[in-house]
Every structure is written in C-alpha cells, then in structure tokens.
C-alpha cells in the first residue's frame, strides 16, 4: 500500500483543533445567518427559522447600549441551556483580550468563540492569542489591516464590525466596503510594493502577500452590526460578504420568527429582488433604530479593538 502519494499523511493519528478544522467550520457557515440569542427559547426560534448557528450572549447589543455598565461573557448555565436546546453550532462571546473567558467557553464546548467589541474590552493592548485554543475564533474588523492582525493571532473567521445594537446598517456598509476595496487594491499592487503595503497595513508581509495573490482573505468574511431587515442582509451579501450576523435585529423586532426566516431567505437569494421583495412584505415592526451619527464617539462599539 502506497501511502506517500498524498500530502500530510505522515501523521496517522486523528488530530483535533487544527487550523484546517477551525477554518473548515467557518467555511461551512458561509451563505448563512448567525443569530444572537439570550435564552434557549430564542435559540429554538432561531434554529427553526433557519439560522446556521446561534450566538449565545447575556444581553443583545441594543440592551447593552441602553443599560450601559460593563458587559461580560454569559453565565455558563445559560450557554449550557442553549447548547442542550439546539443541534446547530453554538457560538459565544468573550471580551477582547479576556483569554480566561475564552478558556471557560472552550471548556463549555461552544463551537466558536466571538472575541467581541460588543462586550467591554478586558485588555486595551492585546487581543487573545487564539492559536493556543482548539476552538475556532471569529473577530471583528473595520479595515483590512485589523482583519489581518486578527488572522495572524489565529482568527478563523472575520466579521466586519458595523455598529452593533443600532439597527443602522451604515457602519456595516462602510466596513465591508473598506475591507473589500483594500483587498482589491492589494491584488492590484505590484509584488515589489507589497513590503510597503504590509508596513502600511501593519500586518505581516507573508499574509499580505497571500491576500494579494488570492484576492481574498484566507478565512471567511462575514458582516455584523446594524443588520435589521432582509434587504440589509441582501445588501451585505451583494457587497461581498460570505454571510451575516444579526444581533438585536431579530429579537428586538415585532415578529422574530418571521423576520429571522425572511433574513435567511434574503441572504441565500441576495441577488434576486423578487425574493427580497416577497420576504419583506408584512414583517411587522423592525427594531427601533439609533442613528450612528447621533451616537457620541465614546458610545461607538466599533472603535473598540485595533
């Protein structure tokens, strides 16, 4: 038997927690909608409506914004409850830099950790060293340099940050447009100019070169922060997103089950105005919005993380 013909066959034993497995799970979520839930009941509604995964957290961003205070990882009891309730992947949020919250979430068996600016940062200098974990991480980014720094630290998925808890999609638009435009610019950059590009992006040269050659990030790029309607989700997909996170937009709306299902369908048929029109009819009230322009800078979550 010839076992030398395929690469990477030197290690016969099954291995877990590898970069391939982390990025692989992220790839499987593409084209899907990841929904914020705060109770097992909401998780069930999200699963029934076609969520590709649920994000377990204590308060949705709109409430975090309204109530203020320090926002932290959820109670393990609540996360357990959600894990037991649904059969789809369960994600949960840790504070930026809070590697012990991440250790707890990995211990709980969540399928993905979101190192999230929606919670209060625990470290204003360092993000979590994500290679040390076997569970995959998703991190927010507002531009390409930030995305590449998170990937360097081990993120298996990037989501543009947007402005969570507002129902105002304008920041999400700005971030996905910025990231995709910077990738296109990088792809058009001469090979001899990539060294300076890496310096300007404040990201490692090897990764910058990889993105320039591929014309894409090496991990899936989702959009988050302010998506509240089927049309919002479809717009993000048309702008080049691989999938969508919906936070407050579903369970702060008049009819969460209906709206969740509509956003799922609009994400799949994002390039078909007929479907988006159909699913947008009679959805009831969208979440009450906050205009990002009216938010004083210290209250803008997207400015957390660097």
């Amino acid at each position, binding site marked *: *038997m*010839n*076992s*030398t*013909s*395929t*690469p*990477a*066959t030197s*290690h*016969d*034993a*099954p*291995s*877990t*927690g*590898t970069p*391939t*497995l982390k990025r*692989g*799970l992220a*790839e*499987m*979520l*593409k*084209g*899907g909608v990841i929904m914020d839930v705060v109770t097992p009941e909401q998780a*069930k509604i999200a*699963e*029934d409506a*076609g*969520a*590709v*995964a649920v994000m377990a957290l204590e308060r949705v961003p709109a409430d975090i914004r309204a109530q203020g205070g320090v926002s932290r990882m959820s109670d393990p009891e609540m996360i357990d409850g959600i*894990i037991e309730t649904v*059969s*789809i*992947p369960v994600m949960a949020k840790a504070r930026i830099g809070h590697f012990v919250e991440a250790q707890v979430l*990995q211990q709980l*068996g*969540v*399928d*993905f950790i979101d190192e999230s600016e929606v919670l209060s940062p625990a470290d204003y200098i360092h993000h979590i060293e994500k290679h040390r974990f*076997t*569970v*995959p991480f998703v991190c927010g980014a507002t531009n390409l340099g930030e995305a590449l720094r998170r990937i360097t630290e081990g993120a298996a998925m990037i989501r543009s940050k947007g402005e969570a808890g507002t129902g105002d999609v304008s920041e999400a638009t700005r971030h996905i447009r910025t990231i995709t435009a910077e990738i296109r610019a990088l792809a058009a950059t001469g090979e001899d100019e990539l060294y300076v590009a890496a310096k300007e992006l404040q990201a490692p040269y090897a990764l910058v070169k990889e993105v320039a050659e591929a014309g894409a990030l090496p991990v899936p790029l989702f959009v988050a922060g302010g998506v509240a309607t089927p049309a919002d989700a479809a717009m993000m997909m048309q702008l080049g997103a691989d999938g969508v996170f919906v936070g407050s937009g579903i369970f702060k709306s008049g009819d969460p089950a209906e709206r969740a299902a509509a956003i*799922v*369908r609009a994400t*799949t*048929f994002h*390039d078909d105005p*007929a*479907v988006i029109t159909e699913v947008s009819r009679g959805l009831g009230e969208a979440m009450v919005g906050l205009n990002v322009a009216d938010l004083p800078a210290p209250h803008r979550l997207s400015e957390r993380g660097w």
Partner: protein
Amino acid sequence: MTLAPAVPDSAVPGTAVRIGVLSLQGDVREHAAVLEHLGAETVTVRRPGELAAVDGLVIPGGESTVIDRLARLTGLREPLRDAIAGGLPVLGTCAGLILLAERLRDAGPGQETIGGLDVTVRRNAFGRQAESFETDLVVPALEELGSGGPTVRAVFLRAPLIEEVGPAAEVLATLPDGRVVAARQRSAIGLAFHPESTGENRFHALFLRSVHEHRLARAARRRLSRPAAGRSPDPRPRQP
C-alpha cells in the same frame, strides 16, 4: 464560478460537463474550485429550473437543517428527489451526505432528507466542534482512477456517520475501527468528510467519471429513441 442562467443541456461528446452546485448555503465555492480545476463547468443551483440544465449535482457541506429548510421552501426538494431518483449523478459531502440519506437519525426539528442513497446516517455523530478531527483514510475505490494511492487526508467537521448501509448501497470508506464514512449507490456518492477542504480532488474525479458515463448513456438512449431531435428541456421560468 459563473452564475449562468438555466440553459438547455447539451450531450455533445467532448464538451465540458456542466455541474450544478446546490447553493442554498455552505461551502459552494470550494466545490466549484475543485470541479473547475478538473475541467468541469459549474453553475449554482437554487431554483428548480436551474436543475434541469446540469449533468451532475454536488450538495456541499454546510448546515443540513438550513439547506433542507430552504430546499423545501423554494420547491426544490421534489425536483431534486426526482432528478436523483432518475439517475442524475450526485456527490454529497457532510451536510450533502445527510441530505442524500434515505434514513436520518438525530435530525433537527422537522428536518427531512432528499434521499437517493440507501443508508442510515446519524447527524453530528462525533459530537461538537471540539470533536471535529482530521485523519488518514484508506479508500480502495480511489485506485479505480489509476493514479495516486488509496490514502486520503479526511476532514470531519461536526460530521455525520453512516450507521447502516442498505442492500442498494456499497461501502466506499471506513475509519480504522470499521465505522462507515463514505458510501456509493450507482452514480450517487456520499461522504461524511470534506475533500474540498483539503484540495483533495479524487472524489470529485470519481464523481465526474460517473457524470461522463451517465451523459454518454443518455445520449446513446436519445439517439436510439429520437434520432432526429435532441431533447431540449424546458426550464421553468425564473420566478417573478
């Protein structure tokens, strides 16, 4: 990957086969990349009309509950079932295997399958992401291709397991402990793992071989029954 509209299929020998990738959710692009590398043309399939125009179908990895739900909502499930029952070659990986299974254990709420593969599959059989693993598999059927050895690096992500193989299907691959992770029934192939995630293209090559055989057989049948006119399927118009 091209987003070509539904067009009549052609059975002209020598032309590239057109493979549809079911694009309701999942790792569509990775499958398209492997297929195009092997010389196939790929189109996305999200509507019944688009299914009529393909020589073979790939059901990608993803979340099987979501793909099933969207397939039923969009009226795609019955045409898929009919096409596969009618012999359309199909390759399903992970979620795709779940959708091809005739019988499903640990299904999500209200989840159904399309069927076509006489197996019983358990969803999330290995556990959560922490139990996802990659390992070497020995797949004797790959030797049919005449190139490369029988060993593949296989990636299992919250993977399903084939717990029973019915009389109509055959085992294609097992883990070292004998548990079945790949099966085949005529031109339907179901894998619990993701060759598309590791650049492994031999399962797709195996699939494309059955697509070519199927297309030649179909062309021969047409010549026999209707020597003058080729069938021109009338794809359902785009839903307004």
